[in-house]
């Protein structure tokens, strides 16, 4: 085989949970290290090898000017740029702040907000071209491994594009929406997590963002019929992926 592909891990505004998932690949970590070169990975190593890299994994939302610069640099030095996790895909949880005027949010946290240079939280594709999206908060490790393997094979990875409901059915979970009347985001959210929340008897929180052919409006309507007020519905859609037009439509219900 040819030289091991070089991988860089970048961090923007995030909790580091997605990159931790790389180290959480214990059962295959040594195989991963055999197959690829984690060349730039500040969380795990002191020395870093300079670019260019074949694959750049970008974690986190972009929330300030420095990050925009850093991101553009990353785009330049990576052949394939991957949004790692929902923050990088859609702005993630940090994007909740976007729905309140920036000044108001800042003044809740800082005594002297004038010097804060925080920008609207966006996913990375707002600024640069992105080749692949590993959704989830955090990402699903299996999908990451799937992605790495496909990259080694030069193929497009199989990442589920459909709703969480599909996986709920494959694992025969009791549907929290139908059987317990708990408002669930599963029908509009991308699968790939193994329908984790419903499997744990909890509504899907929409962390993986809109699935293919999302009909958020219709789901929001159902939420309303089941007694949620507009504030509740807004909070559901303006959460991990509120910046996507698909979920924004759900939040729009009156």
């Amino acid at each position, binding site marked *: 085989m040819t030289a091991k592909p070089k991988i860089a891990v970048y961090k923007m505004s995030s909790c*580091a*949970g*997605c990159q931790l998932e790389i180290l959480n690949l214990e059962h295959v970590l040594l195989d991963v290290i055999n197959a690829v070169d984690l060349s730039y990975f*500040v*969380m*795990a190593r002191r020395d870093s090898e300079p670019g260019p890299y074949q694959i750049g994994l970008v974690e986190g939302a972009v929330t300030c000017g420095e990050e925009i610069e850093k991101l553009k640099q990353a785009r330049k030095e990576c052949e394939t740029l991957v949004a790692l996790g929902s923050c990088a895909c859609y702005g993630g949880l940090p994007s909740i702040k976007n729905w309140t005027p920036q000044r108001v949010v800042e003044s809740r946290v800082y005594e002297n907000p004038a010097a804060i240079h925080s920008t609207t939280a966006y996913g990375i594709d707002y600024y640069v071209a992105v080749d692949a999206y590993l959704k989830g908060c955090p990402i699903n490790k299996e999908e990451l491994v799937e992605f790495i393997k496909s990259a080694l094979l030069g193929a497009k990875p199989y990442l589920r594009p459909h709703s969480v409901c599909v996986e709920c059915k494959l694992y025969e979970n009791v549907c929290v929406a139908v059987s317990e009347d708990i408002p669930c985001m599963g029908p509009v959210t991308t699968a790939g997590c193994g329908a984790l929340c419903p499997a744990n008897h*909890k509504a899907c929180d929409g962390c993986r963002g809109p699935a293919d052919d999302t009909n958020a409006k219709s789901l929001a309507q159902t939420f309303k019929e089941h007694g949620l007020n507009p504030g509740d519905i807004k909070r559901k859609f303006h959460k991990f992926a509120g910046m996507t037009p698909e979920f924004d439509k759900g939040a729009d219900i009156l």
Partner: protein
Amino acid sequence: MSKQIKVDYLARVEGEGALDIKVKDGEIQSLQLRIFEPPRFFQGFLVGRKFDEVPGIVSRICGICPAAHQVTSIMALEDAMGIKVTRQTQDLRRLLALSQYIQSHTLHIYMLAAPDFLGYESVMAMAADYKPVVERALKLKRLGNDLTACIGGREVHPVTAAINGFTKVPAKKELEGFKQKLLAAKEDALETVKLVNTFPIPDFTRDCEHVALSQGSVYALNEGNLVSTKGLHISAWQYRSHIQEKQEVHSSALHSYVVGRNSFMVGPLPRVNLNFDLLSEDAKKAAAETGVSFPNFNPFYSALARAIELVDAVDQSIEIIDRLELREEDTSFEIKGGQGFALTEAPRGTLYHSYIINEQGIVEEADIVPPTAHNVNNMEKDLWQFVPGVLDLSHEEATLRCEMVVRNYDPCISCSAHFLKLNISEV
């Protein structure tokens, strides 16, 4: 002669920080532990969200100790609504916390600290020469993660912990399976203590206040009062009257201190120092065999304290699994407005959450202080004392040593950046 120690990206810590020290004629001119993670405004955007979203949201403050944030926020909210949980819920939360100790301590000892002491740049580099050691680390870490996933549904950002209980209680059979694995892991934990005890520990002691939760009857994790080596003894609701933050000109981070006194340290070393007698018998025995005495004020022994806690975590987990009967419980409750407080011991140290919620359950105010925010002040104080002692070393060596001082704390910069009120000095 002037010298500059500059670490642009502090490696093997969670989050992004830098270290900048300027020395002139043997004297420190400036010392900055810079945190350049941009703020994410959790405390800002929590306002207006519903109380039951809080655990899931605060979890995302930190991917390394999400369960600690979740459980602490849940306890603060329960405090606000006057909810008392069952013994089973307490035990499961404890077990969840212990699983995170196992995971996080193993990660720190083997992947973040060991390379420093054994002379490698990373665990990946170490793997070539120390394969069995690395494999042991992976095994232990996986066990911690698996246990977190079993109780919490997932290792990073678990999902089951909820107000007044768990959305899903693990099956007794499942947990019993873990007992066997934990029994087997005990040996690995003891080996870890031995390994850490071989690390060359710099001779460095600094007299500072060590702060931790203390519960009297068990090794404190998420209950008890906050106590210290200098006589602090308060409960969660008194936190703000005793612990505050101030801005220092030389640093961009806000500095936590005990009112009327100084910076302080939280984390495994203070915990072991303050609660040594409550460690499991085997943990105490393992500690005794190292020949290191506690209480101990050399921060480089933090890794050893972690290893000792690892043994204790394994023992405690087994104990809890043995006594848990596990049945589905009624987790319903009534929403009430109010203010609540909680203090817990996350793997990295004391964590504080407090909320005010209104009658509809909407958050009106949130106050969160994570362990690293507590420690930053102390890290800098350590460095002020430490740096003069390494000035004779090569630049490279001195830099590494300074980084190690920071890594002793296993800092979690994402956490701190999002809660410390950054020093925003206008130029």
